[in-house]
Each structure stands twice: as C-alpha cells, then as structure tokens.
C-alpha cells in the first residue's frame, strides 16, 4: 500500500452529501500524509468533523477560533521547530476565516515566514451560519446577506484577490486548485508542504447547500467553474504565475444556470446586462492568466 491509499479524514463525519469541503479535507490529508499536524479554524468543516467526543481526523488536529488558525499554526511550527520535530504544519480554513476575519493573523504568518502551508477551502460564503456573503463570494451571488431583490442583483463586489495578497507577502508558493481535479489538488498540496516557508493554496469547494445544486453534481459544478473562466487553477512561484490550467472556454451561462444562487439573473427575465458583467470577469481572468486554448486558424 502506498501512502496515498491511506485515509486521514475518516468516513462518518456529518457533512452534507456531495460536500466539496469534505472532499477537499480528504484529498489534502491524503496528499499531506501521516507526518502532518492540521490546524483548523471555526467553520463548516470543524463543525461537521469534530462534534465531541467524535472526530474524523486521523492526523493531530487543533482548532481554537474562527480567526486565529494562522497564529495558532505559527506557534505550533515554532514549538516543533524548537523540539527538533519534523511534522508538517497545515492550516485548513474556510473562506470567511481566510478572506475576512483571519487576514490579520494570516498576514502575520506570511510576513514572519513560518514554514506552514495554509489551505483555504473556498465555498464562497459563510456556510455553517446559514449562507451569508464573505469576501470570497462572487459578484451577483445571492446569499442571505447579499440577497437579490427589487433593487439588488445580489453580491455587489467581486472576490477579494487573496492569492495576490499573499504572493505580495513574499510567499514562495501560491496556488489555486479545485476538488474537481483531485490529482492536481494533491500534487499542489505536496508541492506546498515540501516548499520551505509560508505557502498558500485556495481550493474551490462547491457547496451544494449554499449554492443550490444537487450534491451528486459537485465535481461537475467544479469543472464548469473552471471551463467558464470564473475559477482559474494556477500556480505562482515567488510571486510570478508559472502555470495556469488552459481551457476551451464556454460562456458563463451554463455555470450560472446550474446554481440557485444565480437564479435571479434568469428569472423572471434574463438580466443580460448583469450576465455580461460576469462574463467580463471571466474574460478578464482568461486574459490575466492566459488560459484560453487557441484554436488553430481554419483559414
């Protein structure tokens, strides 16, 4: 049996069927292996995986608060360094903990240069409190605190660019990944934990409950996000984008139509103006990361 066949995130946790974050936890811990200490933030994953006296974690795991996983990890890293131990420290935190409330601690960790891999599972809203917007919520998504209404088309701001912010801190390795591409995610986790210094991976983890889709379709939704250009899988090394997944892009419509959080863009009538703005976000991503597969000239 190779190390990769071992599971460190056990079955029997209480996530929804088709939960993207649960899949991410399984893939991350599988890739990181047994010599890993996981530091978690408050969020969906903590709640569904550690109701006392049960735990789904087969690696050492520690949680303190919503916003301090990066600071707790700094202490864990300093302690094991002092003790001469060899475990790898991996933070697994949601987008609310990462993009919003925890950014002070994360900035501190990256600026100080601890040897920690920080992984954000990005389900694009505060999910365990009931689907409120976060700094990771995409433009126009309908959440309970960015509801679509007579005067609103949903969330008013685009996603905060955390990968760029952390790359600007001098991180040697920043990447994005998706649970829809497990091998790629695992490869990036291994690369991050084997890179000295503070590394960051942002994993796209579709949330069937929060986004409104059938839990059987998690992988499909993840792939549609990539194919639309609204999510880009890329790697940055020392602040430079070195790799981005190329796609034969499709219009954003299919992705938007697949989820209830964008339903208001099509009912009662198609809001072509807003859909065009979202398409522009995807086009901008495509240009910025150079993801378009150029078709050969037919002439």
């Amino acid at each position, binding site marked *: 049996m190779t190390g990769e066949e071992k599971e460190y995130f056990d079955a029997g946790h209480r996530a929804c069927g088709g939960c993207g974050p649960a899949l991410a936890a399984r893939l991350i811990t599988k890739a990181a292996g047994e010599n*890993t200490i996981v530091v978690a933030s408050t969020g969906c994953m903590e709640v569904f995986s550690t109701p006392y006296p049960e735990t789904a974690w087969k690696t050492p795991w520690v949680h303190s*608060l919503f916003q301090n996983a990066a600071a707790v990890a700094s202490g864990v890293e300093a302690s094991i360094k002092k003790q001469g131990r060899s475990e790898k420290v991996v933070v697994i935190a949601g987008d609310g903990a990462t993009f919003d409330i925890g950014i002070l601690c994360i900035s501190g960790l990256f600026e100080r240069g601890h040897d920690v891999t920080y992984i954000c599972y990005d389900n694009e809203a505060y999910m365990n409190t009931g689907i409120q917007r976060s700094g990771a919520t995409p433009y126009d998504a309908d959440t309970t605190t960015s509801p679509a209404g007579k005067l609103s088309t949903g969330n008013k701001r685009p996603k905060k660019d955390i990968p760029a912010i952390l790359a600007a801190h001098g991180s040697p390795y920043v990447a994005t990944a998706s649970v829809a591409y497990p091998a790629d995610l695992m490869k990036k986790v291994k690369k991050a934990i084997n890179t000295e210094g503070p590394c960051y991976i942002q994993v796209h983890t579709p949330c069937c409950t929060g986004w409104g889709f059938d839990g059987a379709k998690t992988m499909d939704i993840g792939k549609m996000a990539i194919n639309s250009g609204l999510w880009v899988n890329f790697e940055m090394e020392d602040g430079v984008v070195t790799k981005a997944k190329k796609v034969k892009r499709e219009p954003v419509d299919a992705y938007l139509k697949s989820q209830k959080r964008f339903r208001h863009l099509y009912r009662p009538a198609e809001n072509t103006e807003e859909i065009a703005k979202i398409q522009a976000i995807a086009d901008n991503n495509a240009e910025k990361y150079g993801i378009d597969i150029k078709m050969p000239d037919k002439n």
Partner: protein
Amino acid sequence: MLQIMEGSHAVAEAVRLSRPEVVSAYPITPQTHIVERLAEMVADGDLDAEYICVESEFSALSSCLGAACAGSRVYSATTSQGLAFMAEVVFNVAGMRQPVVMTIANRALGAPLNIWNDHQDSLFLRDSGWMQMYAEDAQESMDLHFLAYKAAENYDVLLPAMVCFDGFILTHTYEPVDIPTQEEVDSFLPAFKPYQRLDAKDPISFGMYATPDYYQEFRYEIHAAMIKAKKVLREVGQEFSETFGRDYSELVEGYRLDDADVAIVAIGSICGTIKDAVDEMREAGRKVGLLKIRSFRPFPYEEVRTALSGVSKVAVLEKNISIGSRMLGAVGLEVKDAVGKQGADVYSYVGGLGGRDIRKRDIQKLADWAEQGRNDCFFGLREELL
C-alpha cells in the same frame, strides 16, 4: 544574588530562569521592557527559545496556545488594550486547558486612552478560567512566575495563569531583587511535561466543538480545576518557601491584622503604601491592619474569612470599577461574599483609576470611612463631580 533592577527586568529574569521554549509577544506600554529584555536574551543566547514577533496581541496569545498544544512551555506578556484584544483567546486557552503563563503589567482600559495603572484590565477577565495572582513588589513579581508555571502545569490544574503587576509603579521602578540560580529554579520547576500534545505518532484532536450534551461538563471541569488550584498553589507556595526562604504558603498575607478592628483589603503594589499607612495609624494608637490578597483566581474565601474574623469593619481599596454594581468593585464583591453576613461590614472604595496617585493620607481616610460606616464610593474624585 541580590541585585538592584527594574521590575520588568526582574520579570524577564524570572521568565529566562523558567526556560520557556516559545515566547510570543507584541509590545505595549507599560509591558515593553519585559519583552525587549527577553528579545535581548534570545539574541545573546542567554535564553534558548523561539521568539515570535507577532503582529498583534491577538496573535501573541494564539501562537502561545498553538505552541502549548504542540508541547512547549510558553510565555507572553501584555496589558490593557492588548489583553482586551486577546480576550477571545484568553477564554480559549483556559477552555483548552493549556498551562500558558502570561504577565499582565496592569493598566487602565480606554476610553479615554490612558497608559497608567489600575486593575481593570485583568479583572475584566476574572471569569475566563485563568489563575490571577497580584504582586506587591519586584521580588514578588519575579517569584510568582515560578509558582504560576508550577501550579499551571500541575495535572490536577492544567489552567493558564496571569501574573499581574502594576504598570509603571512596578514595571519601571528599580528595587533590590534576590535572583535565584538556574539550578535552584530547575530543581523547583522541572522541564515541561505536557499532559497531551499534538503529535503525528499519537494523533488526537484538540479544541473540538461541543453540543449542549457536553459543553456544560467542560465548564464544570474548568471550575473544579480552579477550586483544586487553591490547594496546589498553597503546596507549591510551601515548597517555594522551603527552597527560597520567601513565604508564599498562603494565598493571602495579613499585616498587623491579628488584633485589628479595621482592615484594609487590597491587591497589588498599593499594599506597600498601605503597610506604611498602617504603621503610622498603629503609632497613633489605631488598631488597623492590612489583608493583602495575592491570588484573586482562585479566590481564597476561607483564608479571607479567617483573616478577617476578628475585625468589625473592612475597607476594600479597589483599583477597578464594576460599572453599575452596588459594591462598585470586583474585589469588594468577593471579600463581602467571603466574610459572610455575620462578619464584618465590608465597604468598597474605588480610587487610583488610570494612575491617580494614592497616598498614605488616602489610606487613612479609607480606614476612617470604614470605621464610620461610609457607603461604597469613589475616593480622590475631582470635587466638581461630587
């Protein structure tokens, strides 16, 4: 070895001698001299610790929590706004039963912004599950750190401890301090043996979430551990007394209290001034004594009750205010409860807030007020407010 040194440096020496493996702190007045001195010690190789220069007090205590969970003896220091900023983690450290030791250089809380001494900052966290000890002078500020680590790491306790000493009054004042040798401290405080730790060879989960089916039991256990801490603190205090010759066998200290009619009760450095005031009042023929409370959490109810059993009036000097409380101060509330209904009359007098000077004549006035049965009130207020 007796040396004249600043209170903050005495604390830094105590920390060095306690051999923490991880020190994490953010500078804030009047705590700064402690962490600066520790940074120097690490830079010179006199303290073999990882020193984390965090970006905030919030991360200072969070990283101490992480390091403690990973199995290290840890240290931090803060005050006032920094402690308030840490508050969420303060509760978590206790809830996760990590024996973190942190010095509080007591300082007033804003607004208005004020950097001087009172006890509002640490008392605001009295219900957090941390032990809280208050020092009278530089020597006690130093010694209490050894006691704090030893009690906190006791498996019957496993609670964090704040060693509180008054900002500027103690932090920035030079006093003679008897510094023990490393060998002496090592024999009193052996290397840290964590009860449980994060370890890939034996994976366990820390800091899980608990439903209503379990949460209450965790809180009960913290409370029970704090009650046990009284006994443990007395035991380690006794052991300390035998090793170092300075008496910490009780959690309170009476001064000329045996035949007193009136007792002044206080915590912290003001006890030094009160001792002088008591001496003067005794010379004038008044039967006044002092009860100094060293441990506020756990609170030594039995010892306070016994110590005050012979007095008829008690003036509690409060450098804090529990806003809207009838007793006015947190210390008075506890003392009144300890004394009980059949005991002495207990009055709570609030003063010295934000560094307002308290003089011997103020202490005499408080003794007078208690004797006259004057109700709980402020002292030293600007007259135009009265």
